[in-house]
């Protein structure tokens, strides 16, 4: 059992015993050794279920939406990505910072359950240390800007329009429209998704490459300036669509056009597409 697991359980026990939190969201072991899904611990007697290992891949923050108006505080274990996700939800007016107690965990990356290598979502992580927390576990992990995370995007940009279209056709052909990408995404926090607004008819229900593409492109644009690069969408996708190649394209462009910006590093900075600058680049003259 790792050192962090022990500390995690101690903290959870303490928080639950003292009544600081009503319940705490962390991770537990699944059926198999390469599964550590989210867990909800409601009493100090069950803190032994909590675990911290290299398979704690799933995000915890999105669950805060299931309990927007809690009776007491919600405890939550948060890695770097979860902390930014929490900021995201706060900034989007979904949850209240006062309602949550954040136990930050400095995270040195998780493993892909299928291969045992570093998970893709962690490979390009720029903020492994929780930027917002009430208490911090573990020693901060060195952070780098990882400009190499845009390499795949640059390569794609070099293709001709038809080649690009072909590439994305091959990807969207695979999509089964299970909406796992949307449901794990902390930026996808609309009360009602455009997909479900069936009376408006934004999205056809038939599964074909083009409807799938319409979904993919619309979703990525919806979260354009709010994507926190947690990589959950691509991880959750059962069909292995490289969804972060879409998100990062927008992030790259936003940075280039409107200046350096990282979503949800705080809860105050207005996202770039929700503001403007008189001096913005002019291409539409």
């Amino acid at each position, binding site marked *: 059992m790792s050192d962090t697991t022990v500390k995690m359980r101690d903290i959870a026990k303490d928080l639950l015993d003292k009544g600081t939190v009503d319940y705490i969201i962390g991770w537990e072991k*699944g*059926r*198999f050794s390469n*599964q550590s*899904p*989210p*867990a*909800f611990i409601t009493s100090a007697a069950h803190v032994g279920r909590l675990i911290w290992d290299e398979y704690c891949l*799933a995000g915890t923050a*999105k*669950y805060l939406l*299931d309990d927007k108006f809690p009776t007491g505080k919600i405890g939550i274990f948060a890695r770097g990505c979860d902390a930014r996700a929490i900021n995201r939800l706060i900034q989007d007016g979904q949850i209240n910072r006062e309602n949550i107690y954040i136990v930050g965990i400095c995270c040195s990356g998780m493993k892909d359950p299928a291969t045992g290598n570093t998970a893709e979502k962690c490979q390009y992580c720029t903020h492994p240390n929780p930027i917002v927390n009430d208490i911090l576990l573990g020693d901060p992990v060195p952070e780098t800007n990882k400009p190499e995370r845009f390499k795949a995007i640059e390569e794609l940009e070099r293709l001709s329009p038809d080649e690009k279209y072909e590439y994305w056709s*091959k990807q969207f*052909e*695979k999509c*089964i*429209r*299970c*909406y*796992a990408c*949307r*449901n*794990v995404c902390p930026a996808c926090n609309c009360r009602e998704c455009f997909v*479900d607004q*069936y009376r408006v008819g934004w999205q*056809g*229900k*038939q*599964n*074909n490459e083009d409807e799938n593409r319409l979904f993919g492109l619309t979703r990525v644009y919806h979260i354009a300036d709010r994507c926190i690069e947690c990589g*959950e969408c691509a*991880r*959750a996708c*059962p*069909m*292995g669509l490289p969804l972060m190649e879409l998100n990062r394209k927008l992030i790259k462009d936003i940075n280039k056009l409107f200046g350096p910006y990282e979503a949800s590093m705080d809860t105050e900075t207005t996202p770039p597409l929700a503001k403007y600058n008189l001096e913005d680049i002019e291409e539409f003259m």
Partner: protein
Amino acid sequence: MKTIAKSRINEVLDILAKESKVLVPMKVNGVSKYTPWGSEGRIALEEVNTLLPPKDTLFPQTEKMYSYKMANQEITELNIHDDSAPQIIFGVRPCDMQSIKCMDDVFLTKSFVDDFYKNKREKLTTICIGCSRVAPTCFCDSMGVDPGRHEAADVQMYDLGNSYGIEAQTEAGQALLNKLQGLIQEQAGELTAVSCTLKVDTSGISDKLAKMFEHPIWKEVSRKCIGCGTCTYLCPTCYCFDMEIKNNGNEGYRFRCWDSCMFSEYSRMAGGHNPRPSKNERIRNRFLHKLEFFNERYGKNLCVGCGRCLSKCPVNVDITLFIDKIKEVAVDEPV
């Protein structure tokens, strides 16, 4: 026993593909699924199970039902769409074979017969390959499926190492074997029985669940569900569908497409009322459908133990853990 050398499988498929579409487990674009023989991709018989189930063959994710044309108030055309054609599905595993049986129950029995399904089913020949090894997520034998064979297949094959044992189980299967005469040898072969490493005890679970509709366990089980449709779309037996229209000016078509009981929109009525408003009710409906409701109606579980949802659920909502948990619960405990 009649056998076919593994090295000659491509020839087998070539022969079969002359007369009808042959679907083979292939890895295409990183996804393993039943793919028409001859298309780009790599044959993936070594994988225990394909990522996408074979249900698409009989019940496509999007299926055109009929097209229409209108002129003002008048309907000038209404044409039923039937794209059924002879198909052979090769290399179906016993669990997926069982799933076809479940779908047969749904679409072909109980007062109405679904013609779209029936047309395709009647033209389908199934070739099942018994499993010689199992994946850690396999639990078909707990669901009453023999991993080595399935009696409903037209042709049953057995993995004998360097060759496949092959036998016809129906007339259609025999007709198919007749076409392969030149490739079939007579050879002694030893069948090795396999069993799943993952076991669950499903005895009496249906009756027990029948008493647990209001049990607090649902809240606990559903809590980590994120409400996506991965489990239902990868499930070989989930057959729920929606029917929608694609209209373009004066013409259009009506299609049906897979739908998922995990989606909030699924049970919402026109007036806005939703009998299953939260994931609590939705998870309950899915698990009860798999293990109780279907049993009551058709006398079998709607879970075949293929293990796809176990490995692909983004948050590992695990039906086997659920079954274990149900076993432990005392039903009479105060709610």
